[in-house]
């Protein structure tokens, strides 16, 4: 099994249920008590970004909006805060997706970082505008760690799509 992405590698088509499962798992990860630890990434934003880069026909702004609504209710935040940030994230990663996939994985991670930072900054600005306090710089450590996780995340989420490396030429499928 080949651990890195390369354009010479042809992937199997993605299974829709796997996309939905991964998004639900990301939600669960966000609900875990570990979400209060400093520097924990926003898993939903990360997985949403991944799928809107890879499969922008299936996962787009509609999903971003619904996931944002769920996160808002779960967080006890103002409704619409995560919605807006996730919708922007989905739009940005969809429009960058054709360019992004040309790069090797570490450089992809570097380009994903500003998108994830944007998500946090947008949420912070929305709350600051209505009278909240600055939550501290620790709030921006999450996206840094999330972009470091881009490489392992790509490997894990593409696992069901990899084909075996040594193929039997008599049986191509």
């Amino acid at each position, binding site marked *: 099994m080949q651990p890195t992405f390369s354009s010479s590698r042809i992937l199997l*088509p993605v299974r829709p249920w796997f996309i939905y499962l991964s998004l639900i798992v990301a939600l669960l990860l966000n609900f875990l008590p570990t979400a209060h630890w400093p520097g924990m990434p926003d898993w939903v934003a990360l997985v949403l970004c991944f799928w809107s880069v890879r499969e922008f026909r299936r996962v787009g702004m509609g999903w971003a909006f619904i996931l944002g609504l769920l996160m808002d209710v779960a967080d006890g935040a103002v409704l619409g805060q995560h919605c807006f940030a996730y919708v922007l994230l989905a739009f940005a990663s969809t429009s960058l997706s054709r360019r992004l996939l040309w790069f090797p994985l570490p450089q992809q991670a570097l380009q994903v970082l500003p998108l994830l930072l944007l998500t946090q900054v947008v949420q912070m600005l929305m709350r600051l505008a209505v009278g909240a306090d600055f939550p501290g710089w620790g709030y921006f450590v999450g996206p840094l760690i999330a972009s470091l996780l881009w490489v392992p995340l790509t490997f894990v989420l593409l696992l069901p799509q990899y084909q075996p490396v040594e193929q039997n030429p008599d049986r191509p499928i």
Partner: protein
Amino acid sequence: MAGFDHAPPPFFKRGPAPLALLTFYTLLSLAVFVVDLRFRSLDLLRQSVALVVDPVQRVAQTPGSLVDYARNYLEGIRSLQLDNDELRHAKLSTAPNLLRLEQLEAENDRLRKLLVVKERENAKGQVAQILYTARDPFSRKVIVDKGQQSGVVAGQPAIDEAGVVGQVTRVFPFSAEITLISDKDQAVPVQIVRSGQRSVVFGLGNGQMELRYMPANADVQVGDVLVTSGLDSVYLQGFPVARVVNIERDSAYSFARIFAAPIAGVENFGEVMILDPRQPLPPPPPEAKSRGSDGSDKPGLRPKKKRAAKGN
């Protein structure tokens, strides 16, 4: 079998343009944001989404609480015995006061009746378990396991064994959200025990609280205990709220900056007691009402104002 669909691949069927979608969803989420913040009219939407999210969230919190439970269990009998001894000791040392409390309350009731003062309200409530703290880094809220099903309504105060913890701000079918008193701009009307002076204490959002609008020469000392004054119709009188920890008096400002730390274990997990809503206060006296609706305070001030306007 995924590759053997007979329908042509949807090359040309892409739905609305991305920019149109972006505009639509952006406007929708901003509208939801404003409506939720300003008008608070989306509680039904929030409650129905919470009905789906809440069980999932509880399941996600289970591993953590299991670890807590296991740790408590393994801490063992030794610490239990220590606790037990301590509690017995504490009980004994408070016994003289407690034993007479009943008699004192009865006496107080009788005296109040003699003076024709309204009787003190009794504090009643229900115990609720804190499930988890809300993940929102901009506010300080906790979720407890009692909701509409247990008759909790928004506005009820929550206390723990030491003092006031917060106030119920949102109610869901099976859970409720308590905003802690240390949340930013969460206000509690208080009274200084030593001097009897009334004021309002505000949360600062960083775990501390501030006593605002106290004159620079106000009689406040470090260590003063603030208890609820009972002037609002929310908190009963006399629950400890905070202790003054720091006072900055600067003659450049007309108000002193007085910082206080909450007395209750506001940031701790555990159990809280949600007190029943207070009986409604008597309506304000009629003469104050008529003065307020009149719009002007004293008839003597009117000619002055007119003269001033003419002079300009």
